[in-house]
């Protein structure tokens, strides 16, 4: 009996000065009601209601905690709310962007959009489509082709250079000053603004082939300036985690270093390398600024990267929004822009998912 009493007393001492767990929900409910009241006083909107309720809740819950549990607990709770709130705030633009692209992009994504170019499509055609309510003509076929070609060439340039540099950094140059310099400048290169990479390619080809040289290949060079550092970094990380025992076992069998690298080290790391390359493609496929200054803009199909201006999906979106085909009725252009945006997001997401898939599917079989 006496033992039971002490037990009870100890319990009440432990929970003394603690709010019950439902207290937060009570405060939340009260804040939502109070928020609705204040919001309807100053003109009711759902956004205003949510913001006012959130502020009232954070302030009220902090004060209630401060009174019942003390200042330290109140501060802890306040920070917890702010941290959760920051995450929700960061989610808002993501949801808004994805919702906008889906809502406005899906109606425009038709067979016609995917497989026709903008060749011969003038403002008059758009005006007619709006007047008669007929489907919007014209599409992004040329831009899709341009995106694929330019990205392919950029990949062809960047992957060998990036891969070999990473091999040098990990296998040959460890501890050398040159390695430190390359690592540092590769990191610095990651931060080059994309438009500067475009200007570099434009300036380079202007010096070689005369000013105003704009082709798909110039754009590919610009993109590879952005892509190489990403490939180097990811490949380097992957080569570093290849166990040294594998290399030593290979050397012990009398295998040359270069055979060891090509037959043992790279195959072991290939899944990580492939996923890094896929991610780097996802990064450059959405680049707009370097394409603007290097490949110009085209409305018809161009399958030759070495001559003539070329369009890509990002520049297509940019020009359709900024300079609608028909200035008097921009709706068809906006619709095409959002359809292209949806297509571009789908490409980027597929590449990102593909990278994760490659990384997990082709991962080397470890003992576990």
């Amino acid at each position, binding site marked *: 009996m006496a033992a039971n009493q002490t037990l009870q007393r100890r319990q009440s001492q432990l929970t003394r000065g603690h709010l019950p767990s439902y207290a937060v929900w009570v405060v939340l409910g009260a804040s939502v009601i109070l928020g609705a009241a204040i919001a309807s006083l100053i003109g009711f909107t759902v956004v205003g209601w949510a913001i006012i309720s959130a502020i009232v809740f954070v302030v009220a819950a902090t004060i209630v905690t401060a009174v019942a549990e003390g200042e330290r607990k109140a501060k802890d709770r306040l920070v917890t709310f702010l941290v959760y709130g920051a995450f929700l705030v960061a989610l808002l633009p993501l949801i808004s*962007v994805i919702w906008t692209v889906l809502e406005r992009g899906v109606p425009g994504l038709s067979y016609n959009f995917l497989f026709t170019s903008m060749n011969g499509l003038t403002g008059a055609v758009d005006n007619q489509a709006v007047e008669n309510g007929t489907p919007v003509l014209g599409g992004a076929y040329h831009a899709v082709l341009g995106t694929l070609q330019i990205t392919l060439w950029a990949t062809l340039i960047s992957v060998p250079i990036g891969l070999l540099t990473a091999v040098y950094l990990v296998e040959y*140059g460890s501890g050398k000053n040159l390695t430190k310099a390359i690592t540092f400048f590769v990191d610095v290169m990651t931060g080059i603004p994309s438009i500067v990479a475009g200007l570099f390619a434009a300036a380079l080809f202007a010096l070689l082939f005369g000013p105003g040289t704009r082709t798909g290949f110039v754009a590919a060079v610009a993109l590879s300036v952005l892509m190489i550092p990403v490939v180097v970094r990811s490949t380097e990380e992957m080569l570093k985690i290849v166990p040294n025992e594998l290399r030593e076992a290979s050397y012990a069998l009398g295998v040359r270093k270069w055979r060891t690298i090509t037959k043992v080290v790279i195959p072991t790391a290939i899944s990580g390398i492939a996923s890094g390359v896929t991610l780097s493609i996802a990064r450059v496929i*959405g680049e*707009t*600024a370097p394409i*603007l*200054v290097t490949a110009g803009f085209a409305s018809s199909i161009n399958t030759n990267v070495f001559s003539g201006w070329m369009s890509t999906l990002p520049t297509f979106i940019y020009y359709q929004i900024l300079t609608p085909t028909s200035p008097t009725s921009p709706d068809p252009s906006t619709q095409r822009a959002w359809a292209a945006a949806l297509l571009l997001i789908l490409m980027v997401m597929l590449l990102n998912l593909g990278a994760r898939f490659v990384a997990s599917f082709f991962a080397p079989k470890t003992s576990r």
Partner: protein
Amino acid sequence: MSTTSLKASTDRGRAGDKIFSGVSLTAGVLILAVLFSVAVFLLVQAAPTFSADPTEVTGGNGFSAYILPIVVGTVVAATIALLIATPVGIAVALFISHYAPRRLARAFGYVIDLLAAIPSVIYGAWGYIVLAPQMAKAYAWLAENLGWLPIFAGPASQTGKTMLTAGVVLAVMVIPIITSLSREIFLQTPTLHEEAALAMGATRWEMVRMAVLPFARPGIISAAMLGLGRALGETMAVALVLSPGALGASLIKTGNQTIAAEIALNFPEAFGLRLNELIAAGLVLFVITLIVNMIARFIITRHKEFSGAN
């Protein structure tokens, strides 16, 4: 017979070794050469601007009078972005590393990484069509109630295509960078420090403030610097969201311009000296971002050497 074949293969192997190491060394040196030539080619193409007659440069007062307002505009846009993105980015990183339920934290991390995967032109289009009209309402209110502050001086832009909108769009693009870098550092905090703080009776916030944040401070600074580098060089969001104009103090009026957007908007139609001028502007941007990035990387490398993280 067998000896000769062995010998032959050995010779071939030695040659292969030399070729392979030579090729990979060349690739590494090539990268340094590329970065060097970026600077050189930009300098060569920009040179005519500096020697040109001041009256021929856009604006008619020489290159420095032309570049200075847009440098200030670039810095202002990036500063707005950073002021919003740094606290939010760090809080989101804390959420993922220390606050979110363990099982969901990875998924939340992927969601934030999605923000980084969306191409900048789509953010620009979103800012142009969705965000700017929404912000216009807020600007009207700001101009009315806080108009005495120079940065909110009216009359507010009707379209909402102003510096502040551009800064907000930039902030959205910078948040995932700051978050992913600081998250990595937060996760490296020595568990013993955290447990020691908790065992002394610290609340979760006190643990974060005493164990996590001091450990992560250099990492947070460099994350913010890298975010700054991104915000300074970001083109499409600003080109689409901002209606450019002369430099002005008010952030909610039409006006101001950044280097990157100036280049993107004018380069396609430029020729002659104008072309050199824009390349010179690009060179200025390159130098600014290079300095910012080098400082950030320097802080990271120094931090790596002293921390027990690796």
